[in-house]
């Protein structure tokens, strides 16, 4: 009887611990969300600092025509419909400055529409 109670206690403790462990892992891995507005011919903010290894979601919202955001070096690309939004989810795995460009032709200043990511330790 005593042995059964001990076994049951261990099982319950293990179950509770595993639930909390999952919660802790999830809390640590929760991505940071950054909202970006895209409007001819700039992003706001134009520069973002991220931590290496910290998951992030960039939420890009267009305030006028269709736009995009592409980081060639990071192999990331999102296209945003006119007035719509799109997300880029990733975890920076190296430090440095990365310049993203609008990837949907949006007019005469399209080529100068950039956003810089500063990834730090």
């Amino acid at each position, binding site marked *: 009887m005593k042995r059964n109670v001990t076994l049951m206690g261990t099982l319950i403790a293990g179950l509770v611990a595993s639930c909390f462990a999952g919660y802790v892992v999830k809390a640590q891995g929760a991505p940071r969300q950054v909202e970006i507005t895209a409007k001819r011919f700039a992003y706001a903010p134009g520069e973002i600092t991220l931590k290496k290894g910290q998951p992030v979601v960039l939420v890009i919202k267009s305030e006028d025509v269709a736009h995009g955001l592409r980081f*060639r070096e990071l192999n990331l690309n999102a296209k945003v419909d006119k007035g719509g939004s799109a997300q880029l989810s990733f975890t920076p795995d190296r430090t440095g400055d990365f310049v993203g*460009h609008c990837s949907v*032709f949006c007019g*005469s*200043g*399209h*080529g*100068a529409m950039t956003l810089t990511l500063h990834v730090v330790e």
Partner: protein
Amino acid sequence: MRLPAGVIVAAFAAALTGCKASPPGKIETATVTFAKHHIFIRNKSQKNPLEPNAATWADGKEAFSHYCVACHGMDGQNTGVPFADHISPPIPSLASDEVQRYSDGQLKEILDNGIWPSGMPGSKGTLSDDELWAIVVFIRHLPPAGSQGIPEMYNH
């Protein structure tokens, strides 16, 4: 001092003749081509930072389609461009030896700043550096003439 009316008329006539968009002669073409390749178009030694692979080529084709096609056609060889032969200087096929003899750096220079006094405009700021270098890759590997159809704007 009064100029005779005949001189004034002759001067106007000469000026108007100079404005006529007639095709350049062989000597004029050879001289200007030499000058562009060896004097006016700089940046000969700059290398393309992009790998010339299928993905870059596709990027270049897309960037080219934004407005280059209005004068150069979908294939870069003037297919379907109704005025290609009627302006002076005529629009060259990008597959021609005259264009292909430019280095990658010179092609980028032309894409950035255009060529004066031809109708070729500069695209620096309108297209990104990435897109312009991708267009250089596209120009180096143009599709067969006529294979891409004609620009939509000339379809109506």
